[in-house]
């Protein structure tokens, strides 16, 4: 399942947030603590995840303690879907 989630989230972050559609994002590349995704984009990402995967992410979870890279985000989505 994670295999299906990863490319979709990667595509969204590269295309919509970083505006570099072809850009590769490593699964362990820090996204939030590195400042790559700012607070406003983080909200967009959370809404995208909620709408695309039908899971809920609360605002209190929107920080690098909950997830900071693609692998962690995919795992979070997986655990919510279960």
């Amino acid at each position, binding site marked *: 399942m994670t295999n299906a989630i990863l490319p979709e989230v990667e595509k969204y972050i590269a295309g919509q947030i970083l505006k570099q559609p072809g*850009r590769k994002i490593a699964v362990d590349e820090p996204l939030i603590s590195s*400042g790559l995704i700012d607070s406003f984009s983080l909200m967009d990402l959370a809404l995208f995840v909620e709408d695309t995967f039908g899971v809920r992410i609360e605002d209190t979870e929107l920080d690098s303690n909950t997830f900071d890279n693609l692998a962690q985000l995919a795992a979070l989505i997986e655990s919510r879907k279960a």
Partner: protein
Amino acid sequence: MTTFTERLSAIYSRTPEQVAITLQFSGRDDLQLTYEQLLRGAERYARTLEREGIQPGEVVVLILQHGEDLVTSFWGTILQGSIPSIMPFLTEKLSPERYKADLSALISITKPSAIVTYPEFEEEVRAALQEGDSVRSVIVTDRIEPASEVDFASLQGMRRKSGDIVLLQHSSGTTGLQKGVALSHQAVFNQLNSYSKSLSITDRDVVVSWLPLYHDMGLIAGFLMPVLSGIPLVLMSPFDWVRAPYKLFQAISKYCGTLTWLPNFAYNFCAQKIRDRHIDGVDLSSLRAVINCSEPVRWESHVAFYERFKDHGLKMEALQTSYAMAENVFGVTQSQLGSIPVVDEIDREAFMTERVAKSPLDGRPSMQMMSSGQPLENVRVKVIDEDGKELPDRVIGEIALKSDCMLTGYFNRPDLTEKAFHEGWYLTGDYGYISNCEVFVSGRKKDMIIVGGKNVYPQDLEALTYEVPGVHAGRSVAFGLFDEAQGTEDVVVIAEVDSENADEQQRIANAIRLHVTKNSAIALRYVKVVGPKWILKTSSGKTARSANKDKFLLELQQSGGI
């Protein structure tokens, strides 16, 4: 003629039990501070500053997050007669080294005598200090004087004069931190008097704000005005708001908020990102005014905001606009409460090429300009050409203003202060036009980027790119690009490198993105790395930001990017 301390003393003796500020926190109950509690807390800081030998008229920098210590230390500094300046707190996204450099930059120009911070941050602050600099004391929040009765007569703040400087305001970044706007008691009161009048403020008003206090809109409209006017303030942290913007609406509903200020992007942000489940039962009918201020105001943003929240009691005529700047304390203009701001449909081509705002001819492309309102009663506004000559109505030029609430000067920078005025008029660096006394702001002469309500100097971002290996000094350009969906500007950085290799360019682009973001807390939207000779320079060798922006836009269009 009065001072902050005299005003507080009067409120304190009249209504000590009235709630002054309700502080909201994430995951904690609201904390209500009456004037008595607020001033008792403030007095502890005033006594501490005295203990440390800080003299009235000296600058005290506050490095604190949203909370009780920030508000009490601010007023404590006032009570003691010293001059507070609030510095943004270090966030997890900003590198500590850059923060240290920014703090050193602030200290070198502003020359504060003391810094107030948390015990856990003391070490970071001390690391930014240098042998022989102005800072004599680092005051930590757990080592302040115990509470006692507030005795105004013994406070040195009572002996300040209305013409004395009362506070400093800085904008962000290395450039902004070296340019502190110094305001006098009198200037602030002149502003508050005329601004409150334009809003018809009464004691039934309640201000709700999430804006940071290191920004003029947050400091003046969302902090000083309510506290000094005896109007309740509900204050939340900007960091909580950005993760949960619906909390603003819950607070308005809970406390029957009547006034709130938002930068334009927040209209889009709230309209697009708030879930129904978070505003279930929220009632916004108490709102008299939601004031759009601090970045270009957009009619489309108002419409989106209204459509999203009208079912919660929001009235269209509650959506208002203002044009403001720290140099005028805050407000320059304010739209007429109770009616919808004037929207002017103008001919796009005439606007671009002839620099005039005229009605569109049949079928020609037009654009909608929303008025920022009329000048406050103590402010005069005019539009001038390059030679300083006043322009007629509907001709676009630089906006200049004159008032009795102007800055005393840029602190310790008489050179900058002198340059900011022309024959007694303050030159705003903004372009706009006037029509029937309504002021329309249409663009910027200065190369400032305004992103999410925050002023960013492009030269600060460009300087950061030069620190990235592979980028040479003078060979990058930063500018803002308006993003219709977000209602604010996206930040674009273009850097020229020697390599024409795509992989190498991508590697450098990644490095620029990381480095600039970590060192400015500004997220870059577009990072473009290009080969030699891409960037356009003026004949004198300077980077022409607007020409490069046009070139970037053209390439983006050609590649189908927009």
